[in-house]
């Protein structure tokens, strides 16, 4: 059942009139018209306008039912805090910002099936493991004098290293996409923000090559863009198919599937790299050996990546299964 139209969209104008009434009432009651009252009468403080925009983080049904009331409560609390001074106003808005972040995400998560939440969490865990395993590879091999000789001996080593690194970056963006779609829901603004984030991640990941090796930068940039766009379009296709059945949750499941593509590529690249490394460059492989043990950091990273990928796949299957 659809809720009746909310006053939410017209709030600033309405509240401006209401606040101006405050000054009139204070004047009529013989109370001093303080600077705060006067400032309130001139319009809605910018922070309340920002809060109104940020309230779109709540699910639409909740926002339509309680949005205007919540905004009015924030406005009244703001007016009271302004009487007490700027420090109190700052403290109030820090508290309201934390309140918004916590409750908007909790409200959205409460609308999701537990299996979808589990799939999102498992994708996040697998994404973090992929990033850590690839970072481990980077720390062991990048700048290592043995690396260039090993890569010359096998092009598979160099290619798998690059693919593992790029796919870990894409998986990181994918995890951010899950968080964004879970917290603020699917929107054009969310997609544009994620695209901007992807560009930042690319420059943070291999931007230094733009000066030192422009051709390598272009090749890596192309690979990164292809993988990111492939993940995005796969995720969007899944979300479109699921939208009728799963509503707003479809975007989260789609992001999980899209991120899963990058995770799969990452695990395959890590596996190929680790399998090829020992026969081609035993000394380089032994760089990952943990002193005094039989354990190898590369193998541990690979095992964790495989394990979390398997758990991710199981949780995603549960999320995709139609409700009984």
């Amino acid at each position, binding site marked *: 059942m659809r809720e009746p139209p909310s006053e939410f969209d017209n709030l600033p104008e309405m509240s401006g009139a209401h606040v101006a009434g405050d000054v009139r009432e204070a004047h009529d009651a013989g109370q001093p018209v303080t600077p705060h009252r006067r400032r309130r009468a001139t319009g809605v403080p910018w922070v309340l306008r920002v809060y109104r925009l940020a309230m779109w983080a709540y699910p639409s049904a909740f926002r339509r039912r309680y949005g205007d009331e*919540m905004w009015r409560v924030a406005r009244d609390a703001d007016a009271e805090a302004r009487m007490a001074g700027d420090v109190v106003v700052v403290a109030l808005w820090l508290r309201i910002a934390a309140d918004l972040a916590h409750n908007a995400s909790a409200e959205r998560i409460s609308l999701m099936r537990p299996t979808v939440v589990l799939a999102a969490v498992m994708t996040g865990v697998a994404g973090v493991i992929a990033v850590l395993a690839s970072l481990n590879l980077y720390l062991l091999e990048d700048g290592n004098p043995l690396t260039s000789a090993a890569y010359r001996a096998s092009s598979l080593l160099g290619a798998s290293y690059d693919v593992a690194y790029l796919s870990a970056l894409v998986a990181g963006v994918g995890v951010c996409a899950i968080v964004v779609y879970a917290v603020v829901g699917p929107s054009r603004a969310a997609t544009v923000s994620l695209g901007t984030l992807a560009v930042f991640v690319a420059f943070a990941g291999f931007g230094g090559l733009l000066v030192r090796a422009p051709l390598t930068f272009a090749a890596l940039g192309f690979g990164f863009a292809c993988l990111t766009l492939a993940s995005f379009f796969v995720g969007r296709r899944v979300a479109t198919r699921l939208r009728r059945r799963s509503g707003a949750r479809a975007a989260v499941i789609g992001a999980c599937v899209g991120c899963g593509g990058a995770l799969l590529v990452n695990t395959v690249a890590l596996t190929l790299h680790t399998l090829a490394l020992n026969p081609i460059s035993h000394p380089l492989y032994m760089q990952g050996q943990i002193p005094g043990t039989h354990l190898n950091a590369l193998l541990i990273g690979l095992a964790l990546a495989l394990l979390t990928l398997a758990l991710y796949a199981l949780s995603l299957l549960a999320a995709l299964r139609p409700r009984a």
Partner: protein
Amino acid sequence: MTMADAEGEARDERGDARAPEALLPLTPGALHILLALAGGERHGYAIMQETTRLSDGAVRLGPGTLYRTLKALLDDGLIAESGERPDPAHDDERRRYYRLTAFGRRVAQAETARLMRLVERAQALPGWEAIRALATLLAPTEAMPLHPATKGVQ
């Protein structure tokens, strides 16, 4: 009024058969809201102010926490939206007022009784007397000021 509100109101009118203990323990926010409404119906901001006053400033509900808790309490039939509105000349007519239902009052009483039993049990624990004595020594109350010698001078 949503279907959940209407259901809560209907349940309130015919008397809720559920055991109040089934909903315990309440979250601190929910209990404070029920206690704030025990004194009469209030709108959101008044509830927020009253919970801060009741808890001596320890519980400060943000708008999100306040309305998510109100929603849960409405769904459980512990509170209901009040049909009556104050004179628009004295209040913003767009505000919604909430009131405690009979079942909500019983749940609040059951939760308060549970907490009182918990406090009694805590006080019976070994070492409690020492903790309370230490707290009394450290607390600057009127009954025992930190600087008793200066009290007479003032």
